[in-house]
């Protein structure tokens, strides 16, 4: 599917410019996301030149890591025609219980082991989601609303509600470890943290799974039409378990990075941000009924949401408008993509 899309794309670029632009948008909806992103950046820079400072850009990069990891997980589930709202609960559950575990029982665990444990923990919870979605045969939205409350309720009632302010030292060190560092014009030290690298790596892995493996084929096939895919011999159970397990793994990783970056573990964090993440994926051009979308588009959608969230204040719009603006963006994007399909 992707190979033929690339061919079509190459064909379209060889034709006249005015035609190819419309065609490009139709085939690669994330072009619109990119244009929107550039337009917003240009407008904001015109109003407030402070936006283009390296410190602002690095802040945006830093803020998009956790959301980007979530979004990759949501995207891969969306591509298969499902939807997940429990990933924030998985992240909160993994990060908090792992932090408690390390703090109280294994204070000497190296950070690599902690990261792997977070991935494994997230995978486990994700697999529970996958099994439930497959066996209950109801829309995954309803199942994951249930598991969201299940995981979060379990965390808050049986594991703890205390805000942990002093992390194990190796986790704090990981959050501070710099990728590169420089001094900005006003003398403050700006740091791009090392954990930023995890997002591009995760994006590459996701891209590889979707475009270079049989599982990726299976995911898009199931998203296109689950019945036909299962008659073609794809095992729906394996696909569902893989999908939700993978999304859970990304969520667990995102959770532990969230802790390290903020240098505190708050069990009430993260849950409630899931709509922002789904909005980002949808703005990136993935259809909510499945079968389409690209990793690049998802990342652009994440950037768009992060930029909207952080620039509203810079251009003088009160932060109370943030939800309304994002909500309207979702509806506009949905309406736009639907009319685009109809023209086709």
């Amino acid at each position, binding site marked *: 599917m992707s190979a033929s899309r690339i061919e079509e794309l190459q064909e379209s670029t060889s034709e006249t410019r005015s035609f190819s632009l419309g065609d490009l948008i139709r085939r690669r909806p994330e072009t619109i996301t990119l244009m929107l992103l550039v337009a917003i950046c240009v407008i904001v820079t015109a109003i407030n030149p402070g936006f283009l400072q390296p410190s602002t850009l690095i802040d945006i990069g830093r803020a998009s890591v956790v959301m980007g990891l979530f979004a990759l997980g949501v995207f891969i589930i969306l591509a298969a025609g499902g939807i997940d709202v429990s990933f924030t609960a998985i992240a909160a559950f993994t990060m908090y219980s792992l932090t408690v575990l390390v703090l109280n029982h294994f204070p000497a665990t190296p950070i690599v082991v902690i990261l792997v444990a977070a991935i494994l923990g997230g995978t486990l919870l994700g697999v529970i989601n996958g099994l439930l979605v497959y066996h209950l*045969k109801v829309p995954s939205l309803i199942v994951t609303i249930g598991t969201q*409350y299940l995981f979060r309720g379990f965390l808050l009632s049986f594991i703890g509600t205390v805000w942990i302010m002093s992390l194990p030292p190796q986790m704090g060190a990981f959050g501070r470890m710099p990728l590169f560092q420089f001094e900005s014009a006003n003398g403050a030290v700006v740091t791009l943290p090392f954990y930023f690298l995890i997002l591009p790596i995760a994006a590459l892995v996701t891209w590889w799974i979707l475009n270079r493996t049989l599982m990726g084929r299976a995911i898009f096939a199931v998203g296109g039409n689950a019945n036909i895919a299962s008659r073609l011999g794809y095992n729906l159970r394996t696909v569902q378990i893989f999908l939700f397990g993978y999304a859970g793994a990304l969520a667990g990783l995102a959770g532990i990075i969230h802790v390290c970056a903020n240098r505190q573990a708050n069990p009430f964090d993260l849950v409630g941000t899931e709509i922002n993440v789904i909005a980002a994926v949808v703005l990136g051009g993935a259809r909510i009924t499945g079968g389409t979308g690209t990793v690049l588009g998802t990342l652009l959608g994440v950037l768009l949401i992060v930029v909207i969230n952080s620039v509203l204040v810079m251009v003088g719009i009160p932060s109370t408008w943030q939800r*309304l603006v994002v909500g309207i963006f979702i509806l506009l994007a949905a309406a736009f993509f639907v009319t685009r399909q109809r023209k086709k």
Partner: protein
Amino acid sequence: MQKTGGQLVMLVAINCLLLVLGAAISGGSFLSLFNLQSMASQLPEIGLLAIGVMLAMCAGNGGIDLSGIALANLSGVLSAVIVSSFLSSTDSETAFSLAFIAGALAIGFLGGLTNGLLISKLNITPILCTLGTQMAFMGLAVVVSGGKAVMVGSPALLSSIGNDMFLEVPISFLIFVVVAGLIAAALKFTPYGLWLMLMGTNPKAALYAGFPKNGVLMATYAISGTLSGLAGAIIAARNVNVKFDYGSSYLLIAILIAVMAGVKPEGGYGRVICVVLSAVALQLMSSLLNFGGLSNFVRDFAWGLLLLTFLAVGRYDLTGFLFPGNRQPVSLAPRPHAPKRDN
């Protein structure tokens, strides 16, 4: 549709069991008039939202209304802001109350109609559409109120809806029962009800049969929105203040009630009486957990577990297993067989 009667019997049995259990645990005070009244007055807000979710689910094609509680809060907040700009809640109490309720209902209706228009005319998937409007409604409520609670006050009429009794029954509960009855009647005796259920069962066949698809969808979401508006008015009547983030767990609970009532998430089947009974059961359980002195978090955990359990009940037809005598269709309404699902 073999479980039509079974679900009803099971819900009645669950309710009786909970009442007995409550009485046994609390030594009778669970069944005191005061406790029953306070439970009945907590029920309407969530019950109305659950009926809205049920209608949207019945429409099929992935129908669901996630914007319910956000729209309810928006109705309360916006109506309070608009009405108190030209009326004072202390000087002209009746006029303020009436204007406030009318405003909340109108805003709920408009919000629901927006959902319906987006879904039917623009063909946006209901999940995505109501996700977007949920955020937009909540955002609008934040913008209008500046993120703070808006004072409604307690003008006589409004506060009597929220707090007073009629023949020892809370007035808000009576309103809920009447509205639920109206919707049940509309589903059973009007063409709209038949269209809605048949459309949910098989959208393609409904299209070829010439059903007014857009009209049915718009009516469904507009009714759901109006119910949210009514819920918003009742919330305001009970709480004196309205705020944009009231009842953040209501979204899950409304879906839980609908699923517990045997409403099919894939569309085509749902009964109002079951939704009412399952809302009652949930309220009983919630009060029971309160009596047991458990925290809100345990309750969240229990709700999640309960939702998944009832999904499993619906999937494996455990009701038929538990009540084998009730597998015959009892309902008089014409009900087509759902298309067979391959497993």
